[in-house]
């Protein structure tokens, strides 16, 4: 191949600066969506306990809560148009 690469990008940029959506925004949305679903299931399991080992610790609720918080932070922090 004859064409040589152009010089490295002159600025230390996140790819999001050349598009409107950041990679971290995608991460946030995915975690927020999955976390929301799991959190909902976790709340449901307070009244309908699951049959898995250590279900009494309500892992779906706590893990879902953690993912939702993580996803919410990244979604808001890297939302389109911010910064």
């Amino acid at each position, binding site marked *: *191949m*004859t*064409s*040589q*690469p*152009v010089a*490295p*990008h002159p*600025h*230390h*940029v*996140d*790819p999001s600066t*050349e*598009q409107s*959506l950041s*990679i971290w925004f*995608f*991460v946030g*949305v*995915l*975690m927020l*969506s*999955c976390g929301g*679903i*799991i959190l*909902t*299931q*976790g709340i449901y*399991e307070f009244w309908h306990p*699951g*049959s*898995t*080992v*250590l*279900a009494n*610790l309500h*892992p*779906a609720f706590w*893990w*879902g809560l953690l*993912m939702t918080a993580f996803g919410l932070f990244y979604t808001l922090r890297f939302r389109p148009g911010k910064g």
Partner: protein
Amino acid sequence: MPAVFIPAAPIPAIMLLAATQLTHLAPIDVAILLLYFAMVLFIGFYVKSAANTSEQFFLAGREMTAWIAGLSFVSANLGSLELMGWAGAAYQYGILATHWYWIGAIPAMLFLGVVMMPFYYISKTHSVPGYLQLRFGEGARGLSGVCFAFMTILMSGVNMYAMAAVMQVVLGWNINFSMWVGAITVAIYVMLGGLRSAIINEVLQFVLIWAGAMLIPILGLIEAGGWHNLMAQITLRMGSEYTHLWSTTGSFAANPMGVHWTGIVFGLGWVISFGYWTTDFLVVQRVLSANSLRSARMAPIIGSAFKMFVPFFVILPGLLALVLLKDPSGHLIQLYPDGSDMVLHHGAYNYNQVLPLMMIRYLGPGLLGLGITALVAGFMSGMAGNVSAFSTVWTYDIYGAYINKKASDSHYVSMGRWSTIAGMAVSVGTAYLVRHAASIMDYVQALFSFFIAPLLGTVILGMLWKRATRAGGFWGLLSGTAASIAMFVWVKTDMHNLRFVAMSPNAQPMAENLYRALWSWVICVVVTVIVSYCTKATPEAQLNGLVYGCTVIPSDGATRLYQKPLFWAIVVATVLFILNLWLW
């Protein structure tokens, strides 16, 4: 370490052909899986507009930050074959399996960032075969390019079949359905967005795997009563050799893996690890996408910091299963080697099923969907990584180098998109081939390893020794690869020959990989040195930007201590040292 280096613990044909369905997904599990597929496809369409030039399509425009390149770098290797295979290896061999994540990865990643990356980066190469062309000429590029492209596309097919087969075993899904859905999805998002699309999805996969797999060791440690109780129970049941990293490696017979520390240090820690992490274009391509020299140097170091903690959710579940995996009546479930009589005729589980079994043990609806999605993401990411690397090497180092040298940039981008489709089609063919002759999978994985160890010798000598000549590089690479194949065939035809390759009658198959890699590297280096001294040296002026000692490495712009890659490399190395001492 990649699945290609675990012939003793690949996903076996037996597991793949098992008919028993382990569990099923609830509607919310399916919702999580569909959400992931929708996002992956959206990303492919979304980034298409930013993949119009060859630089954008094949190297993501060289715009990635150190964090994104670093996570992608480690994620490209974090495939589901690897997760399941090494969780099974931990069950089989104990904590020794951790070596493949620590000494078998971290030093090489740090070396790539601190020493090698400047040469890859400032040489402006598009690929590892491209670097070989600059340093050793067309012969070395042609040999490495063809071998890499061929092996990569076969590995993509193996990943595809493995995903479909695991989904069949775990969830009872139709194998054709899984293969085609996976192949079409990956083909769409890589064809549209090139490396940028693959990298974004690898970062997503990285987060998904951590989110989906971290809960198993957390709940497992709670159930076991903490780390010390777990170690005590494993020692009681299996012996202390299952809980020590180094103290049992003084002899082949003293540890369940049947390896000696020399094999671990020199075979795994040096040749295999450095060969894979510093010369396999599948992972190096991710770092080449970095937006500056400092980002390119920091990316592998960031990746190594995360890699160091992967054993927490890969090795630990295997260890936990040794004492916690029980049937409904409370009896420990015993897993057996692949292909054993118990697995074949009595419906017992095999080692590689340990991770899905632990998922089912702890993860209810929703969480199980997350775990399964993480596995699917890992498989798809593995396919995408292979196909995007294939597309680059095919277009730059085969098509652009030998078939059509003077096409326009847009033509090469089109070729990249079409080769993605073609590569995926070949992968599908390979997957069906593996389906009908599952032993092919072992050979494909072994084939890949033939090339990596000698390639390390060629690249290292190329970068660090200016006297290495073009003829030396080519013949060293060729002879090292040929020697590796010859040793593989020699042992395959008669297992007793293993004692000569591994230098001990007590050596186990795992030791063969370590010593075969070591010997093929030694042969490559020796031949390269001899041929180089017999041929005319390359003028130093032609080595500028390619070889240590002939190159003024530009400043990476780091002024403060915390900005310097070397500082962070030392921090990671120190933590690694402490962890090894802790589990000595």
